[in-house]
């Protein structure tokens, strides 16, 4: 706990018009942390993640990245986003590019690497997620689980400090969930700092070292996964977990 925080979220609030989605959110991500954010649909989990990647503009509060507030005016959002990767529920692979090009375009155009370097790097990460045989395929030609693995490789190829996952398995058939989760588990084992919004309770319990339970736009309870899953302190947490574990 002595390590310096990568991300600090302080008193973060977000409202869409009069609808208050996030209220006074506080939490910290340290290097190597695998934080799972769980909670019912509509509790603000995804909005929180999108705020952290500046895809939504927070209404109030601060997000500190290495101690610097990134929500203010005059912040170079694209430069910040290269250090905080994001994997989406709907993959969002670029449909006009092949698998390989998807993993290269950020490196060549944003990081200004040479094509050879970018290709070697892309291949490295595609191999890691087991998608290297499919480099010439277009996104429309591969399955959902494969798309998501390519999306992870694309995010990794930028070599970010933190990786955000927004319900990475929610759009997948049950048989494809496993391949994506196993890639994520490998990443966690290698010490990647990850922030995962998920409905996969087993993943949250077994892989992450910190779990945040959200309800109605506030953090209801957070703590070590074993502690939170075995002995939830709040009634709402207990109710939510019992509903999920019964399945």
């Amino acid at each position, binding site marked *: 706990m002595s390590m310096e925080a990568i991300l600090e979220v302080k008193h973060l609030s977000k409202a869409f018009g009069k609808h208050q989605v996030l209220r006074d959110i506080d939490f910290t991500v340290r290097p190597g942390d695998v934080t799972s954010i769980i909670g019912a649909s509509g509790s603000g989990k995804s909005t929180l993640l999108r705020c952290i990647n500046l895809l939504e503009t927070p209404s109030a509060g601060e997000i500190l990245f290495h101690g610097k507030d990134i929500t203010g005016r005059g912040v170079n959002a694209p430069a910040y*986003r*290269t250090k905080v990767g994001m994997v989406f529920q709907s993959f*969002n692979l670029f449909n006009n590019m*092949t698998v390989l090009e998807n993993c290269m375009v950020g490196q060549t*155009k*944003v990081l200004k690497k040479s094509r050879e370097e970018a290709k070697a790097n892309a291949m490295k990460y595609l191999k890691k997620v087991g998608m290297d*045989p499919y480099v010439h395929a277009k996104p429309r*030609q591969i399955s959902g689980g494969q798309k998501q693995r390519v999306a992870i490789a694309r995010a990794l190829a930028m070599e970010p400090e933190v990786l955000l996952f927004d319900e990475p398995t929610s759009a997948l058939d049950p048989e494809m969930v496993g391949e994506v989760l196993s890639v994520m588990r490998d990443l966690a084992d290698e010490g990647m700092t990850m922030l995962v919004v998920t409905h996969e309770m087993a993943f949250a319990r077994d892989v992450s070292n910190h779990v945040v339970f959200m309800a109605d736009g506030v953090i209801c309870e957070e703590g070590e996964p074993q502690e939170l899953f075995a002995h939830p302190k709040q009634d709402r947490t207990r109710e939510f977990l019992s509903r999920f574990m019964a399945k």
Partner: protein
Amino acid sequence: MERFMQLGQDVALLLGAYWKQYLSGLGNTLALAIIATVIGCVIGLACGILNTIPCSPHDPMPKRVLLRLVRILVRIYVEVFRGTPMVLQSVFIYYGLPYFSNNTMRFDNIWSAAILIVSINTGAYMAESVRGGILSIDPGQTEGAKAIGMTHVQTMLHVILPQAFRNILPQIGNNFIINIKDTSVMFIIGFTELFAAHRYITGVNLMYFPSAAIEMIAYLTMTLIASALLRLLEKVLDGSDNYELVQTDSLTMTAGTYNHPAKGSPFDERSKEQRERVEQELKFGRNRGDR
């Protein structure tokens, strides 16, 4: 039947005497349509990008004011040029420039005037098509591009426009075909395209109908070829439906490998002598001497 024979004769007569005029008119029409469509597309793309620059209340005041101003200007441009006839615009611009500059400025080259007028016209239509094309792309594509740190311009150039371009290609084709036909109004400022050739020739010999028949066939031929080429271009842009697997993992045994890969099979590539020996062995068993 007799009438058709007569028409055929007249057409042959006209073509024999004036084929040069027809042909140069055809060339001019095509050249103008192609150049103006390309420039118009560039104008349309530029307007489409300007119109879709995101603007959040967090941006500094000057940027927001500038963006608002740009959008109003683009809007005025589109509405004015879409909402007035091109034949009138050409007269307005061609004669308006010398009128306002007291004859110090004028179009010395009829080509530059014609290209300018048809281009800005096409641009006005394309601006809306491009805007539609950009809106048709899933917002997730933009988010994916932003998430790897792309700026708005990079997102547009590398992700959104290539996909939007594919979607608006039928629209571009539409505009090209419209341009082939509508450049005919350029005769009003003295541009000698295909229709001007008709006016010139019939002014000499009064053979209106046969000349019009030639023109009809010429225009239809051009537009048919254009639409066929555009279909072909769409097909090329869509790319192949197939892709090749790159099997680099030598640890995987492919189906049908009944031996361990290291040991090889009787069907592996070998030298001729070795292959024959293997075949002999398979037929007759091993030679004694080999043991």
